[in-house]
């Protein structure tokens, strides 16, 4: 393993992480909910009465985030390298996988680990390990 110290951005990472933690804290302390993005979004596909507004609002906040970010920090860098075919396949896997697994990086990785949930630890270790393995295969075995 070679650490890329030039790419390492400890302060923005830590400050951004704290902001994510603040969002999670607001959501659970005020709304009584886990800020799990796949769960909030997935719940909109089979909407129940009285359960739609806050989901739409949370998703809208995420989508609107770069617009307000630009006013203070300049253009938001979210450049995507992957091609359209890969994006469609990966998006499908992320959609179905996070729903079967009951969570993603936010619900299991941040919220679940914050409340010491054993099943979130299992889920997080699983998708992390598979993520590492997938990048190893695509970058080092297939050389894509």
């Amino acid at each position, binding site marked *: 393993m070679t650490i890329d110290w030039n790419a390492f951005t400890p302060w923005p990472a830590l400050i951004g992480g704290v902001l*994510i933690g603040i969002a999670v804290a607001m959501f659970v302390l005020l709304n009584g909910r886990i800020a799990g993005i796949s769960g909030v979004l997935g719940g909109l596909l089979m909407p129940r009465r009285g359960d739609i507004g806050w989901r739409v609002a949370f998703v809208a906040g995420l989508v609107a985030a770069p617009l307000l970010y630009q006013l203070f920090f300049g253009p938001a860098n979210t450049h*995507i390298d992957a091609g359209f075919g890969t994006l469609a396949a990966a998006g499908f896997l992320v959609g179905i996988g996070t729903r079967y697994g009951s969570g993603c990086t936010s619900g299991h990785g941040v*919220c679940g680990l914050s409340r010491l949930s054993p099943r979130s630890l299992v889920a997080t270790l699983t998708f992390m390990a598979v993520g590492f393995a997938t990048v190893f295969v695509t970058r080092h075995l297939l050389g894509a």
Partner: protein
Amino acid sequence: MVVVLTALLAGLVFGWGLLISGMAQPTKVLAFLDLAGRWDPSLVLVMVGAIAVGSLAFAVARRRKKSLLGLDMRLPTTRIDRSLVVGSTLFGIGWGLVGLCPGPALVALGTGQAKAFVFVLAMLVGMGVFEGLEQRRARRAPSQA
């Protein structure tokens, strides 16, 4: 109405956290997942920062039956089963292929990129397939639903 406003604000703050931390940059996420290449450890600190604040919040939330706005605390308790592991595996493959998970995908959508649109659309299709299969399963075994 207040609940909707707090959800909107939480979404915005979450999105800014993703943008500032670098979690919304697929290239940075892939550099973190590339242990055998030139590894960028930044995202470890994103998790450290988020969990440090999150664990304080959940320590408080755990002791309450109602949220500060008077809503029921909904903290899920489900088991570790096969679907948890299979689902997380499928998610890990998709995440490792492009470096996007659901939150950063929605943030990227807000920048108006066509590629983010394709990813989010495919993600919604995947979630829809899950809902369809679950409904069919529930109809077949109504006693377990």
